């Protein structure tokens, strides 16, 4: 993992009084050893990217936001302390990819619940609760966002995640491939298929006049 040492050193310094800045390996070793300062350092380092990723994909502050942050960090720690180590170019980018995965799972869960229990049919919809000013523009933007979230939650998970990592979070294909544990060619195929599927669903939506 290639998180800049200076970031970690600064964080470590704020949590301990040791004069020698810890290396990334020291922090990770601290996490493996269950040392609280190391977990706190890791949290502080990665929280911005985790929060930004969750909020970028989910957009609204739902009641389960804290749960999603916690799930993201649990997965991060499990992977760091588990036997399966991943080779990534950047620790924060890798954490972002985990948060993207968590966000995607959350979207899929919401879609499933909405479909199964018709939650949206009772009471005012989220769209109707959007407040003015420029209500129409906001309504249109919100509808577009909801369609996109719904569409991604229905797509093949690997394709959707590749699309999010590359197109939304701005990672290069090599980095996406590394994060997902596949070859660059496979990542390229997933991205291409994800684009095709997104366009196909948009075309179907246009035909149905759902816009």
């Amino acid at each position, binding site marked *: 993992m290639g998180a800049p040492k200076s970031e970690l050193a600064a964080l470590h310094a704020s949590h301990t009084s040791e004069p020698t800045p810890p290396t990334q390996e020291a922090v990770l070793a601290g996490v493996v*050893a*269950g040392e609280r300062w190391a977990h706190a350092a890791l949290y502080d380092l990665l929280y911005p990217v985790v929060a930004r990723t969750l909020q970028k994909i989910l*957009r609204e502050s739902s009641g389960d936001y804290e749960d999603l942050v916690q799930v993201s960090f649990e997965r991060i720690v499990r992977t760091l302390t588990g036997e399966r180590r991943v080779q990534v170019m950047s620790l924060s980018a890798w954490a972002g990819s985990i948060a993207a995965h968590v966000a995607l799972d959350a979207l899929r869960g919401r879609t499933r619940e909405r479909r199964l229990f018709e939650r949206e*049919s009772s009471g005012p919809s989220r769209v109707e609760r959007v407040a003015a000013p420029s209500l129409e523009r906001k309504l249109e933007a919100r509808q577009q*966002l909801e369609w996109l979230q719904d569409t991604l939650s229905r797509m093949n998970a690997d394709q959707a995640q590749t699309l999010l990592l590359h197109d939304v979070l701005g990672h290069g294909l090599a980095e996406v491939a590394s994060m997902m544990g596949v070859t660059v060619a496979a990542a390229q195929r997933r991205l291409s298929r994800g684009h095709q599927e997104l366009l196909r669903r948009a075309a179907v939506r246009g035909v149905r006049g759902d816009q």
Partner: protein
Amino acid sequence: MITDSRVAELLAPFTEPEDDLASRRLQVDREKIVSRMVDVSLAPEERFGSRARIVAALALAAGFALATWGGARLWRQATPTGAAGIEVVALRGSVTGVQGDKSSDLSLGAPTQLSPEGTLETSQNAEARIKTSAGMEIDLLENTKVSLAELGATRVSSALRLEHGRVRCVIPHQPGRTFTVVTAAARVIDVGTIFSVSVEQTATGPKTVVHVEDGEVLVQYPGGQSRLTASQSWASGSEPSKPIAAAAPADVAVEELPTTQSPRRDLVKHRPETLAAETKLLRSGLANERKGELGAAVTAFETLVTRYPDSQLAPDAKAALARVKGRLESRP
């Protein structure tokens, strides 16, 4: 970088900066999450201790490598050509795979390769995802048990047996291939779609509930079959349909779509867009027949039969066509 401008446009809600994103102050209990992180990293150590954990990890790794090598050899010998392994990911909670005499708990978040045999079971608050080489994704929700024996068995068909609980299936459209969820009460056959099947225990016995999110499925049950499209549901007859708003009573076609009492006929995959047109034509013909506009009914049925000769609705349309023509001939 997004190269396709249309894709960029569609993804704009995610990529455009949102004014209030940075200003949001979402409340997160940092200490609680850090404590949870510590718990997670300490969890294995609580049982074994640090040194024992390293030794156990090495032993496990060696055992796993040996088992993988041996399993792969056995798998190559035992698996018919065309069959493939499946990947299972435990998303949360306790997920147990049983293959032969061996039972193992799956690691959270780590993909596990399994051969299509045995069972997979989730406990309360657990969730798992099965991915097949054919691109199918099947989510197992909590308290669910499935049999994997027929999953990916052949190139043209595969099936998942749902003992109890609920599964959600995302099935890519692949002409010539079928995927079926089998319960004690029904067979749910996909036609390239997203759907859920649950088996719930009720006072009168297990009840199967099918809900289609996207695309179309065919539900076969003793005494007939029903075709379900997006947002439609079906429930088996062991209990009156009440939990799901759109659920239809058992043995009744959903939204007046025709059912047949005949044995299962070969299933041909259809594209959802043509299925909608086929359904529309059949409905139109039936509506005209009811109104007594027999000429218009004949036109609609004939259009369906000639334009979509392979349609699953074609037999119904042909039967209706014969009936209407008989009525026309008997007119003075």
